[in-house]
């Protein structure tokens, strides 16, 4: 494909690669939009980006392909995941729409927009293409570098300024300076008592349960699990592992065995309560 100055078809290999990867890319994109959890969305997007990197390479943009993987998939997506972990993990995004008609309108607009874009592309006479053989003859990276430092040097410099500004901006935005004195322990406890909600420390997980992993709630004396004992983040994410039924079942079985062993008859009532 490098040889022909002007061609209208690519190689069959590329075609096969395109059709397979295009499906993957589209799937990733849809996944990004439709996945309930932000983490899943991020992973889908990462997949799409990698596919795109492959396409860049196929299109002769070797430098960009590599940059796409390193910078985009490697750095930016990781930044995303980092922030997701920082803030977005509390709750899965509810996909229930709150603005009336928003989804319909969005679908309509997207459909119309897509149709128009397709029509536009189809309308343009793009039967033939030049290929990058000549441009890439001195090496793709060298070619881009030549352009960047000659023709686009000002834009390049300004981009640098932009990046620095962005870095400083991010720091300024996220850096929080205390404007008032931090409350002391004493003040905190007074406030807690005044609120009158939970004066002593929260109960630890796993109390009265067989496990004491952080995601296992402790049991109340009647055997029901108490959510208070689990970390709020896990609670919000619905990641509480309720093992009470299993534990109670085991307890009941134990008691049955012991009552059988002792020949007593009260065991039936307790069995019913356990369920």
């Amino acid at each position, binding site marked *: 494909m490098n040889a022909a100055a002007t061609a209208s078809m690519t190689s069959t290999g590329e075609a096969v690669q395109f059709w397979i990867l295009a499906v993957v890319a589209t799937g990733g994109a849809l996944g990004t939009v439709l996945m309930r959890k932000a983490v899943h969305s991020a992973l889908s997007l990462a997949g799409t980006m990698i596919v795109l990197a492959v396409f860049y390479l196929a299109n002769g943009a070797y430098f960009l392909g590599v940059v796409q993987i390193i910078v985009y998939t490697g750095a930016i997506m990781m930044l995303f995941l980092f922030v997701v972990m920082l803030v977005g993990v509390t709750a899965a995004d509810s996909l229930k729409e709150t*603005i009336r008609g*928003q989804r319909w*309108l*969005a679908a309509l*607009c*997207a459909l*119309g*927009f897509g149709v*128009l*874009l397709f*029509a*536009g592309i189809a*309308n343009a006479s793009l039967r033939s293409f030049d290929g990058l053989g000549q441009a890439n003859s001195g090496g793709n990276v060298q070619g881009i570098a030549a352009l960047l430092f000659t023709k686009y040097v000002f834009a390049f410099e300004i981009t640098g300024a932009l990046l620095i500004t962005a870095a400083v901006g991010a720091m300024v935005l996220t850096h929080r300076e205390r404007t008032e004195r931090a409350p002391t322990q004493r003040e905190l406890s007074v406030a807690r008592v005044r609120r009158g909600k939970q004066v002593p420390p929260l109960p630890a997980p796993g109390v009265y349960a067989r496990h004491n992993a952080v995601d296992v709630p402790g049991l109340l004396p009647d055997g029901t699990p108490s959510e208070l004992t689990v970390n709020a983040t896990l609670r919000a994410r619905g990641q509480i592992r309720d093992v009470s039924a299993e534990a109670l079942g085991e307890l009941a079985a134990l008691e049955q065995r012991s009552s059988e062993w002792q020949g007593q008859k009260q065991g039936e009532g307790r069995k019913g309560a356990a369920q």
Partner: protein
Amino acid sequence: MENLIGLLVLAPLLGAAVLLCGGRRLDRAGHWVGTLLAAVSFVIGVVLFAYLLGRSGDDRELGVTVFSWVPVGGFRADVGFQLDQLSMTFVLLITGVGSLIHLYSVGYMAHDERRRRFFGYLNLFLAAMLLLVLADNYLLLYVGWEGVGLASFLLIGFWQHKPSAATAAKKAFLVNRVGDMGLSIAIMLMFTTFGTFAFGPVLGGADGAGEGRLTAIGLMLLLAACGKSAQVPLQSWLGDAMEGPTPVSALIHAATMVTAGVYLIVRSGAIFEGAPDAQTAVVTVGAVTLLFGAIVGCAKDDIKKALAGSTMSQIGYMILAAGLGPVGYVFAIMHLVTHGFFKAGLFLGAGSVMHAMDDEVDMRHYGGLRTYMPITFVTFGLGYLAIIGFPGLSGFFSKDKIIEAAFAKGGTEGWILGGAALLGAAITAYYMTRVMLMTFFGEKRWQPAPSPAEPGAEPAAAHGAGELPHPHEAPRTMTVPMIVLAVGSVFAGGLFTVNNAFVKWLEPVTGHEEGHSPVSALTVTAATMAVLVVGVALAWAQYGRRPVPVTAPRGSLLTRAARRDLLQDDFNHVVLVRGGEHLTRSLVYVDHTVVDGVVNGTAASVGGLSGRMRKLQNGYARSYAVSMFGGAAVLIAATLLMRAV
């Protein structure tokens, strides 16, 4: 000599300006200034009269153009005066009677704190009236015409603190304005037809215009005359106008202003002669009014209103005569002059009586005054004899001629008009006898004075309320004018008729034809005398033989209707006033709800729409993103479409 004409108008105008702008400093001498300037005007009038008499009959027209007033394109209005025999007659009447009434007012208004202003208004009236009769074109006449209307408005409403006076003044002005509308349309028609509205060319060129156009002009002039001269159907203001001080009633609403309509019709004779239909309308109006006024005059107990009805009726005679064409013009003017004397005299007499009776106007509260105020009685009596047409007195000559001329119209029309005039003469005799008997004869029916009006408002009552009046003869300033006018009422008619002097004097201006009556002049006179006797006898039977009840009896249907001006006022009230009120009220409503409502509605709907639109701005960034995205789609579509096209 011509320049004197301008002075004639200027003298009273100067008086008005000085008196009205002069401030309180002139309060003490103002009335004499006013009277003096009126007299100056009269003297100038006499000088001019003498000058005119010195010239031959056909060369007695003086004209002077003072300055060009409104020159716009073909529209040329000048301030110019024309003095001919017709104007001269009026000038003498106006200034003569005017000066006398100024003099009378000095006494009559002696106790009024706003006397200076009263004389200012009187002078203003004189100026406007002189302008009216001296103008050489219709537009300038119109200025005088409205000017006298203004003066009349100011003087009727002179006692403004009385709501009735203020209302009467407004009514007079408004009804007059309706007439003025007629005059202005007439002037516009003249301008459209002839391209000018100066007397000479219009009246000279009237032959050339079509009859339809002349009829239109004539009818509009008649409307104007009806307004100013209180003829049916615009007569309703005159009765109310009696709210003004009595000298005003005498000068403006009896002797001069109200006769302006007659002047207008006689002056525009050439137009009416070319429009027989308009003439018919004029005589009809005259005949109807002379009966209308007479009937109203019979029923009124208010002495001034009775005299007002009489004035209406007498002017009806004049209008009738003026509508008869050249046969009647001279007699219309002659009756106008004699009427000016005797009616002014009668009003001054009435004023004198009121002055004596603490401003009591109800004749049922008079009675037996002849011994208390002999001069008033004699002068009033002479006026009375003159107006009923007692042989040898001035009213006899002028009225008789009119009745004769009415018969001379010929045919059924002549009989009807003549009959109406005769009937009018009978009623005149009846109601004037009634006034005379109720006021000066019979026993005293005096009532305690009504509670005092606002202090210092009217000629102040000499004593407090609740006492019987003490009638006394009026002061000299009041009696002298009454005597002079009485002399005029006795001798003027005879003087005019001697040697046919008046006819000869006016003929060059108005033209004159001898009527050919189907009945001889002697028969007419005899018939007039007969109806006169019948009228007097009837009145004596009713009011002389029997005592007059102090409170008015209910009376017949006709009497009750006549007391209410034959329901004309009620008709006006229901149709015009009420209707107008409803119209304006509904228009105010329409303006507020519909015209303004459309605009406010537009504003409200824009507001409502934006209220709806506001909901689109729900604050959700994603909603905005949809609009953005949709907008982008539309832009792309538009771009594609543009390229496709």
